[in-house]
């Protein structure tokens, strides 16, 4: 056990922040979706790391697999939405999709 837990956590935090930045900063809806994927994977790293250094129960791994399933489902729905929006509005730029404006 040469690598301590904190390294994984730092990696995970960094990855999460990159994803968050992508979500907030990118204009393209596909890129925003990519950011979300990064954030989810950061969580996965956290879960697996805590499992490895934890009490030895399998919970962490199970949760990671559940997150995979959620992530893939989310991507499928998200991409479908984006395609649908593109067909109607001919754009995938998030700032242009402001129908909710008061």
């Amino acid at each position, binding site marked *: 056990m040469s690598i301590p837990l904190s390294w994984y956590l730092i990696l995970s935090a960094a990855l999460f922040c990159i994803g968050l930045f992508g979500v*907030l900063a990118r204009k393209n809806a596909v890129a925003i979706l990519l950011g979300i994927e990064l954030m989810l994977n950061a969580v996965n790293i956290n879960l697996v790391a805590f499992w490895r250094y934890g009490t030895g129960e399998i919970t962490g791994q199970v949760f990671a697999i559940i997150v995979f399933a959620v992530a893939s489902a989310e991507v499928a729905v998200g991409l479908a939405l984006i395609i649908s929006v593109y067909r109607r509005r001919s754009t995938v730029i*998030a700032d242009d*999709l*402001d129908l909710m*404006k008061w």
Partner: protein
Amino acid sequence: MTTESTIWLIPLPPLLAFFLIILFTNKNKVLSHSVAIGAAALSWLGGMLVFIRAIQVEHFGKEVFASSVNWLPVGDSWFKIGVLVDPLSAITLFFVAWTILMIFIYSVGYQNFGKPKGDHDQAGLPPHGATITDEHGHKHTVPSIEPMYSRFFALLGLFAFGMYTLVVSDNLLTMFVGWEIMGLCSYLLIGFWYGKKSARNAAIKAFMTTRVGDVFMLLGISFLYSATGTLSFREILSADVLSALASASTPIFGLSAAGLIGLLLFIGTVGKSAQWPLHVWLPDAMEGPTPVSAMIHAATMVSAGVYAIIRMFPLITADFTGHGLTTTMSVIAFIGAFTAIFAATIAVAQNDIKRVLAYSTISQLGFMVASVGIGAYVAAIFHLVTHAFFKALLFLGSGSVIHGMEHGVLHTGDHSVDPQDMFNMGGLRKKMPITFWTFLIGGFALSGFPLLTAGFWSKDEILADAFSHSHWAVFITLAVAAFLTAFYTMRQITLTFLGKPRTKSAEHAQETHWTMTLPLVVLAIFAIGFGWVGIPEEFPFIGGIIPNWLHEFVGGTLAHHPEALPFNIWPLLTSLTVALGGLVIGWLVYRNVTSAEEDKLQFKLLKNKYYFDEIYDFLFVKPAYWFAETFAYKFIDQTIIDGFLNRIGGFAMAVGTAFRKYFDAPVVNGFGDLVGEGSKRIGKFLAPVIQRGRVQYYMLASLSVAVIVAVIYYFTLA
């Protein structure tokens, strides 16, 4: 089954029958009357069993059948209720059971069982008759069945329950309960044909008048309970309690407690047994169907009144030393004797066959009350029993006559003929032989026809008692009343049965169904035979052939067995003279009278019953109406109570309006409006800033909130 448990069960069958009929068998007439008669027969059987066992006990007055259970906790002890059969209640049970059973059977025929449904009969009105077509195509009008047939039997059942309860009770409270049940039933049954205004009024009158007596009776019961702490007959009528009550004085008229309680209880009897001045309800009660008249006026209710004072006899006579009557006894003797002669004079001038009997009932009850008043205990019971038999017989007989007449009325179709008016009758002895002979027996028993009939022996005993204790006023009054009794009875028999038919309806009158004549025959047997058990031992020639069982048996109820009277020829001669004289004169006067105009005795004063109804109307009814209308309703209710409430309402309204105007509208509503309007304006101001419609902007906003919350959490709570 022990005798005691049999006694407990005696009142129950009629009550069960009442509920069964009301709840289940109401629609089915056969089932309803079978249930009712079955129940009456069961009670009769129970009553006879108890009676037979009672007469086999040698000193029954000392070894009575009694049993009681704890009922109501009072303080540390229990108020007990139970049953008691001593000689008095045994003999009462005997005649009550017989008469009730006979009346139940009779009702089947009287309410036209088996006849077709009426053409336009309505519930609440007497049946009007039905038209049927025979095989030759002729149309006939025949009597139709009573529309509320089942209801009638249900009510009779409840009535019987009340009477049995009263008879077997061992305390004043349950006795009073039975007493009141009968009061209710008399109201319901007198008003049975409630479609008639006269029936409704009669029902209310009967209920209200007896209520006057009942209130005083309840007062007496309360006084008795507060004075002795018990209502059980056996405890009250024990020597210790009686002497304590007799020596306790009360502030009213200088009466002893015993005397005052006796007087209060006696007022209950005055109401129930229709003694003057509360007699007015009984004649009007003839509005009910005839079996009801027999039930109320012979078998049960009025007898209950006399039964009550006979039951309380030791209390009434507690301070009686044997020399001179006490105040209470004088009052009772006076009211009884006065009622006897007073009602007898009215009966002379009545033309309605049932009303004559009604007044004769009042008069005969007066005989019994008077004999209690003069201390003639056994004589009072004797007359109570014989009277119940012959008066039930007479009422049922008169019902049979009316029924026969109604048949004639329907046959001729002349509805102007009143089937109850004796002047429309005449010559019915040939048309209705069984009714005639039984009615004759009943009438002769009522008149006191010598030696043969029961009425002679009981009435003679009352007169003999009054004579031998030198109560001259009572003796003379009762003798005159007895003469009048024989006179009006013979008038009734002559007008109804003898001579020639005076109307076409009377010509077509017909003997009634066997369900009606059978009870007449049975009661006629008792109207003759029951007198023989009480023939004085010293009576010339026939005395002692049959031992004076009644005196031995009933006298045993009292602590000191009353002595048999020494024989005296004068009262005997008196009763012979008045009975035979009255009968003969009645026949001589009325044998040729053919219409009411020829009747010389139709004095206005008597015809109008001494104007008692009018006097009471003026003295009590009108003022009561005035009080209710003008004082209670218009003044108290409308002016004071309503006025007060309206003021309160108006005040509340004013306060409410003020609150609304000066508090609710400006303050509460203003604040609410302010909040609403404020939020609206803030929203309007913030909306363009916050709600931009950009997803990432929202995300940033929620991220910053999350960061702020995390920071606050970190620095404060963690």
